[in-house]
Each structure stands twice: as structure tokens, then as C-alpha cells.
């Protein structure tokens, strides 16, 4: 009998279609898994048991009645807490939104609901998606199921760990500088940042509007493609949404054909600064693609040297403005200043923002406010926009020589919790390989490349494609996955330690259950 918690979304969909299981059975199995392991992993900020089961039952009834359903109907999903969900708390990992229950659904969430996927809960994240480890979540970090002392990546560490700990087969993510791809890399899962504008941003609590992009997270390339297809497409509520057909991504994932494809290795994103085991798995993966019929070229993108600096001017600038709305006036936390009788609105705003935002958020608001201020704008924000153009130009010329570009997703495997929390620059460097795609608006994917020899932890293989050519990611990702599964004798996650064997018998102290359900 299939372990419903380990099956892929595609397999679960087949099982339901064949009448061998029901959405209720699957949903119940996953909720039980969460009860067993999430005390240790802390993927969720909020679990919606009743809502998930109600959706599951509704789908089961419709299926029994012979209705035509979406391919993924009845397959449960976890939603990153950056997305608004009617009736479910949405905190974005921040104290300032504690207890806020949105009155509307993000477009992505509305599509998930319309397709009949039970929403299991809201996953943990770095506060306002600022971070690479979930350590900046106001509700405590998530843990990497490969090693609970290590980070699950960020900001989407809740979504990556929920997949790697078999609490859900699908999850949503958002990627501003790598928040889907880097968590996928360090947990041995798959994640795609679509072309900017490919998936609606409506209802995503904005970090940096020109960089944010929602995308799919799963354990297989095909599942990722199926979820991507569900999420994607034009949305009139998002002015930056692309009004064009979604590329044939599911078909590309099924065909897994890279014959004749030119794979470009980006010189600036390999070698020095990358962990030996990560580099080794990357080199082997490239060889597998060559074996599958692809051709390798080396390309150079000299402006990438400035990508991190550019990113850390544009992101904080936009974030400082996007986060201005959290002012205690209409929703969320409201804190009265100490020792002030009859405080003014401005004093309440200041006290609330002081109490409600964490250090990393404050750091970036200050950076962005500075970069945009009069007299500095041209030197900082203005220059950054020019470099951004150069980075896009580098990609354009690289894509003249190659159909896709590849690199390791992150320079290292998962680092230990606490290792970089006091060194923001070291933390930022984790995103060195993922950031250029966000600056240029092109799509990127991370697929597992294996375990690094020195620490036995997962490494990720990043694939980048030109804007609107997301299907190429899936062709390459699926081809690599096929070859590696053959080598490994099954998915990489088959090798993950058994959490129930190694986890502490008592749940770890996590404040999330209380912290996020108040006022719900």
C-alpha cells in the first residue's frame, strides 16, 4: 500500500482518479504526520485542519458525482504565510500582523481553492520574506528535516521543510532573491521562480514589488510543473501580470528532452566561493545532461559581480515603501508608547513599528529610506537601476549562446541555525547565485543534485531560462531528475533520516500555535 504522505502529487491524483483513495484519506494522513513531526520541524504557523478536511470532503463528493475535476483536485497543499487567505491568519512571519485575518484571497490562493486543493495551513517564513534561513521569523525558525540543527533555507523554509518532512506534497512559495530556490536546494526538494509577471502577485504581501514572484514548490519536477500551471496565467488585478499563454511546462516536464539543447555554465557562478561537495555534484549533473544529449557552453556575465550590491539597494528601497502601510491605523498590531499620556497617532505608529518589526526588517527599512532620500537617490537607487539593466543585458547575450544557464543554486549546503544570524552580509551571500534572475525577471528552478560528500546534506542545481521560456526549466530539470533517480535508485528524499526515529519525543518549544491563532 502506498504511503500517502510520501507519494507525489501526480501519484495522489492518479490514486484518487482510480478510486483507490480519497482526498479525505490523504488529507487525514498528512494532518496526522503534521501532529507527529511539526513540533520538531515547525513548518507551519497555522494549521487549518477543519478547512482542509471540508475541502477534501467536497472534492470527494464531486468526484463521486462524476464531475470533471482539476488534475490536482483533492491533493492537499501548504500555503506560504505571505499570501492572503480569507478567514485564515496571515502574518507574513511578522509580529506586526499577529492575529490579522484577511478579508480576501490572493489570486494564487483563489486559483488553488477553485481547483479544489485542500489548504492544510500556512507555512513559516522569514519576516516579510527577508532572510535565507527562517531565523528572522517572529514565531521562531523552521528546522531542516535532514538535520534539525540546520536551517531549511529562507525565506520559504516553512514550505521547503513541509515538503521534506512529508507533511504536504505541494507548497506555494515566493522568490524575491532566491526564497523558493535556495530552500529547495538545502532540503533536497524542487522549486521554481517563474518569469516575472507569470504568476499573479495580487494578495502577496509585497517585499520588493519589482523582484517578488510567486511560484511552486514540490518534491518532483512534474509536481512542480503541475502546480506552476495551476498558479500561472494573466490576472487583471496585477498590472505587471503577463497577458500571454502560459508556456507548455507540464508537457516539457513529461518529455524531459534535452537533446540538442545548449547548456550554458555561468563562469561567475561556479568555482571559488562554492563548497567543494556542492561544486562536485554540480559538475556531475552537467555531465548527466551531456549524456542525455545536451551540449555545454561556457558563458560570462561580468555584471553579476554587482548583483548583490544592486539587489541590496533596490530591495530595501521598495521594501521601505511597501512596509510603510503597517502603521497600526487599520489592522494588525497596535502598541501604545510607554510613559506617554494621550499619545498621538504618530507616536502610536512609531511604538507599533518599533515593537512589531524585527531587526532585519528595521535594518532594510533604514537602508531603503536612506537610499531613496533626496541627495542620495541618484547615487544609490538610480545607479542600482542602471546596473540592473546591465545584468539583464548580460543575460540577453548569454542566452544568445545558450538555451538555458546553469549553476549551483546556493554556494553551500544548509548551515547551522545561528551560524550567520549575527552576520547579515554572510547571510546575504547565500543568495549570490539566485539574485541575478530576480533582477532580470527571468525564470529559475532548483532541482536536487545529490548530497555533498563532506556533510551528507542536499545540494541544489539551478537552471535559468529566458523570460517566458519557463518550459525549458522543466525539460532540463526533468531530464536531470530522471538520470539522477536512476543513479540513486529513487528520489533523494528516500535517504532522509526518519524524523520519528530521531526527533525528540516531546515537541520542541515553539510559540507559533499561540502566537498566530489569536484573533482568528
Amino acid at each position, binding site marked *: 500500500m502506498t504511503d500517502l504522505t510520501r507519494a507525489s502529487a501526480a501519484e495522489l491524483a492518479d490514486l484518487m482518479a482510480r478510486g483507490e483513495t480519497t482526498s479525505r484519506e490523504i488529507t487525514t494522513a498528512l494532518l496526522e504526520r503534521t501532529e507527529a513531526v511539526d513540533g520538531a520541524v515547525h513548518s507551519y504557523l497555522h494549521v487549518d485542519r477543519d478547512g482542509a478536511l471540508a475541502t477534501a470532503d467536497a472534492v470527494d463528493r464531486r468526484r463521486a458525482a462524476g464531475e470533471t475535476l482539476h488534475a490536482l483536485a483533492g491533493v492537499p497543499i501548504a500555503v506560504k504565510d505571505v*499570501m*492572503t487567505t480569507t478567514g485564515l491568519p*496571515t502574518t*507574513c512571519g511578522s509580529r506586526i*500582523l499577529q492575529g*490579522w485575518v*484577511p*478579508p*480576501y484571497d*490572493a489570486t494564487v490562493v483563489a486559483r488553488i481553492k477553485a481547483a479544489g486543493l485542500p489548504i492544510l495551513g500556512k507555512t513559516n517564513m522569514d519576516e516579510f520574506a527577508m532572510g535565507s534561513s527562517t531565523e528572522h521569523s517572529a514565531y521562531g525558525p523552521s528546522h531542516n528535516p535532514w538535520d534539525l540543527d540546520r536551517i531549511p533555507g529562507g525565506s520559504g523554509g516553512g514550505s521547503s521543510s513541509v515538503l521534506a518532512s512529508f507533511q504536504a506534497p505541494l507548497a506555494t512559495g515566493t522568490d524575491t532573491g532566491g526564497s523558493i530556490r535556495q530552500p529547495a536546494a538545502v532540503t533536497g526538494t524542487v522549486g521554481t521562480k517563474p518569469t516575472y509577471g507569470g504568476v499573479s*502577485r*495580487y*494578495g*502577496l*504581501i*509585497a517585499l*520588493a*514589488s*519589482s523582484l517578488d514572484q510567486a511560484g511552486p514548490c514540490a518534491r518532483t519536477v512534474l509536481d512542480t510543473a503541475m502546480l506552476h500551471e495551476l498558479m500561472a496565467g494573466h490576472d*487583471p*488585478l*496585477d*498590472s*505587471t501580470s503577463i497577458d500571454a499563454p502560459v508556456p507548455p511546462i507540464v508537457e516539457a516536464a513529461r518529455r524531459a528532452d534535452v537533446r540538442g539543447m545548449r547548456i550554458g555554465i555561468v563562469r561567475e557562478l561556479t568555482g571559488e566561493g562554492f563548497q567543494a561537495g556542492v561544486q562536485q555534484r554540480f559538475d556531475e549533473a552537467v555531465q548527466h545532461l551531456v549524456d542525455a544529449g545536451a551540449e555545454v557552453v561556457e558563458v560570462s556575465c561580468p555584471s553579476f559581480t554587482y548583483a548583490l550590491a544592486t539587489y541590496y539597494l533596490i530591495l530595501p*528601497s*521598495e521594501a*521601505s*515603501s511597501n512596509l*510603510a*502601510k*503597517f*502603521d497600526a*491605523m*487599520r*489592522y494588525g498590531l497596535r502598541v501604545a508608547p510607554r510613559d506617554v499620556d494621550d499619545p498621538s*497617532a*504618530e507616536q502610536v*505608529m512609531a511604538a507599533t513599528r518599533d515593537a512589531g518589526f524585527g531587526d532585519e526588517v528595521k535594518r532594510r527599512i533604514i537602508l531603503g*529610506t536612506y537610499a*531613496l*532620500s*533626496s541627495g542620495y*537617490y541618484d547615487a544609490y*537607487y538610480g545607479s542600482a537601476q542602471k546596473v540592473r539593466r546591465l545584468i539583464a543585458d548580460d543575460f540577453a547575450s548569454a542566452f544568445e549562446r545558450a538555451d538555458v544557464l546553469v549553476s549551483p543554486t546556493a554556494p553551500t549546503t544548509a548551515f547551522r541555525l545561528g551560524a550567520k544570524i549575527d552576520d547579515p552580509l554572510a547571510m546575504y551571500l547565500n543568495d549570490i547565485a539566485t539574485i541575478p534572475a530576480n533582477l532580470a525577471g527571468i525564470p529559475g528552478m532548483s532541482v536536487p543534485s545529490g548530497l555533498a560528500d563532506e556533510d551528507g546534506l542536499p545540494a541544489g542545481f539551478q537552471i535559468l531560462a529566458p523570460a517566458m521560456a519557463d518550459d525549458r526549466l522543466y525539460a532540463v530539470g526533468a531530464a536531470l531528475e530522471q538520470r539522477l533517480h536512476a543513479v540513486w535508485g529513487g528520489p533523494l528524499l528516500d535517504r532522509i533520516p526518519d524524523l520519528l526515529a530521531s526527533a525528540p519525543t516531546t515537541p520542541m518549544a515553539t510559540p507559533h500555535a499561540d502566537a498566530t491563532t489569536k484573533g482568528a
Partner: protein
Amino acid sequence: MSAGDTEALMGYDDVLAAYDPALGLEVHVELGTNTKMFCGCATTFGAEPNTQVCPVCLGLPGALPVVNAIGVESAIRIGLALNCEIATWSRFARKNYFYPDMPKNFQTSQYDEPIAFGGHLDVDLEDGTVFRVEIERAHMEEDTGKSLHVGGATGRIHGATHSLVDYNRAGIPLIEIVTKPIVGAGERAPDVARAYVATLRDLLKALGVSDVKMEQGSMRCDVNLSLSPKGSGVLGTRTETKNVNSLRSVERAVRYEMCRHGAILASGGSILQETRHWHEDTGITTSGREKSDAEDYRYFPEPDLVPIAPARDWVEELRATLPEPPAQRRKRLQAAYSYSDLEMRDVLNAGLLDLIEETVTAGGSPAAARKWWSGEVARRANADGQDVPSYAAGLGVGPAQVVELETLVTSGRLNDAMARQAWEGVLDGEGSPTAVADARGLQLNQDSGALETAVDAVIAANPEVAEKIRDGKVQAVGALIGQVMKEMRGQGDAAAARALILSRLGQA
């Protein structure tokens, strides 16, 4: 306001002797679109607070703006009507500052890439000259919510115990129209300011893009003013006076600030660059927040919206929809109607031109149209605090009634005094002019025998006057006509009476 707030003022003529004024006018116009600038919420004025709101205009986390196409179209038409260039590529920008009635704590506006720029508007001044006001730019933005400060004596934030915020207005489309510095107006500066705003109001009304009601805040004016030593050509430090919400106030505020600046400068002081508030009741300005370099809006291009690049053929299509410029139309109609300058001014001041034009179109004569729309109805509208068009519309009285009334006169059924009575009846809601005339028994006495009897009696009773007329002093006939009318209890035909008197006295 307490007396302590009153500042020293210099005499207006003294100001002009020593200084040249420079003006800058910023006018905000609320567009009359059905929905808001960036969401689908309704824009009805006066709705219950916070009933016309949604995640977008409340600035809820995750919500995104979508541009109102009619808003853009209106902005382009306004730009074209102001003789501006229309940008081939234009972007929105965020203007960042914290204020409780601004949901996102930034205003979506335009900064260095406005939709329209570099135009002009010619305005007619009281002295008959035409003054050209150069337009710097016209750009699109959204309105803020509205704060109501409760518990204080004055409704101001100081002294209030709490504030209520109505977000219905948040996100209403605004066009901000900014002039270049207006120099060289000299003593006419207050007149130029008033005439500019009045002309702009007429233009926007003719475009049909806004109801331009200054009293309801759908058109708001900020007045920038500075003085420079006469002939120096160097712009002085300016103040920005807000809340100037009537044409008369615009004129008064300019004059007041000129006199206030003059007093400060003449005493060796310097002008503080600041925002000032205009007080309609007392006719003075008071200091608002200080506008210093510290106020930094950190503008940057709005990343949630895509640039606007209006196609040239669309712009030309919109140009073809522009109405005749109001000034040109006024000149054309004045000539066509043969109104004197004085008559025309009265017609314009009372806002009657549209009604008169409609009445003429419906078959009335320009003279009768002007006469009937400016007399009794104007008095009543004024007493009711309304303008004539809306007052008449409220009564259901329009051009058709005036045409009917005029026909009753020209057909000889009513004389002028009777027509006035009939018109009063119409305004009293007694029905059409004919119905009122019937009900009140208004009918000229067309019995020639009765007229002859009355005329002969009056001539007999006034031999001296009759003698004068016989001697050629024809103008004396008026006195006799009056008496004939009296004899006939107002129902005589004055023209017939005149003809008969003159004939009897050998002057016909």
C-alpha cells in the same frame, strides 16, 4: 481666530511700489469617473463613511493597483485642452510620507514623468486684457482619505480627543495642474489668479471631466506667492497657501499674502518657506507646517504599475473630442446675441450662458432669454443659495417655458407686466406659462373700442401734455400711455395705446 494671529500688513499700493509679485498656482481636480483611480470602488460624493472601500484603496497587505483607463483618458484630454504636450512615455511614482488618512503611507502620484507638460491657458482679465498663464505640467494622482478631528473646539487636530478617518475619498482620481511661475502680473496678480482658476474651472466643466465644485472640494487650489524687489527679477522665498476654495478667496488670498510678505520684507525680515492655511471667514492666512528640506518624499517609480505610453493616434482621437475653448465660445455667442460687454459679464457671472444658449436653440430670442433667466429667477435662486441652472433644474423649469412665455408676448396675448406675472406663477409651480395665464386670467384687452375710450379720456384729462405732444415733444407720450394702461387695469396693449395717442394728436 484670536487677534494675536493677525500679522502686520503693508498697504497694497506700497507693496506694488517696492516689489514684483510672482505667483504659482496648483489646482487639484477630482475627476468625475465612476470608479476610483486604482480600484473599482464607487466615487459617489457624500456616501456613508467607509462604504466605498476595498482592499486596494484601504491599502491592505497584498492588494495591488490597476489604473483606471478613463482617468488616463481624462488626464490626456485636460492636457490637450491646456495646450500641453502629451508624454509618449509616462510613469507613476510613489510619494512617501506618513499620514493616518493615507492608507499605504505613500501617495501614488507622478513625479518627473508626468502625462502632460508645457502648455498654456489664456485668461481674460477684468480690464479687458488677455493674460497668458504658462502651464508647467498636469499629472495624475490619487486623493487621500479624510480626517475628522473630534472633541476639539475648532475641528482642528489640536485639542481634539480623537480622529475619525473616512477612506471613501482615498483613491479618487485627481489631476494636479501646476503653473509655471507667473511673473509680470504686477497689480493684476490677484485678478490673474482668480481669472486663471475661473477659466480653468470653465474649461474642465466644458470637458465634462469633473463637476469642479470648489465648495465640495472637487476642485482645490493652492496659491504659491513670493515677492521680489522691484525690477530685480530674482524670485523670492515663497509660501504655499492651502485650502483656498472659492474664486473670491483665491483673489483675496493672493492680495493678503502680498501685503503680509511686503510688511515682513520691508521691516528687514525674511519669509519663512512654509505651508499656510487660508481662513475664508476672517480673510487671513495662518502658519501651517513648516516646509523645510527635512521633508523628503523619497519619490521613486511605482513598481506595481506599468508605464503609460499613449499611442499617438489615440491622443489625436482624444484631441478631436475637445470642446470649443470657453473663451472662444463666449466671444462667439456674445457677437451672435448682440450682448453688450456689461450684459455679457452679468450673464457669465450668473452662470447663465448654457441656459441662454439652450433657450435660443429652442427658438427663443437672445434678448428674451437673457431677460427671463436673469430677473426674478436669479433673485429666487440667490435667496435659495443656488445658481440659476441648478435652481431652475430643481423646479423643472427650462428653456421650453421661456420660449412659450416669449411666444405669449409676441403673439399679443400678454404684455410685459402680464408676462412677469405668468413667469412668477411658473416659478411658483403653477404650471406652464399658458396654464398660469389661463388660471390667472391674464389676457391683453384687444377691444379697440375700449382702447379708444380710454385714450380719449386720458387726452381730455391731460390737455397740457397733449399740447406738448402736438408741438412735437413725442417723448411725453410715456406719461399718457401709463395712464391709459391704468384706465384699462393693466390689460391694455401698450404699443397699440402709443400708436393711437400719437395718431389722435397728429404725430402718427
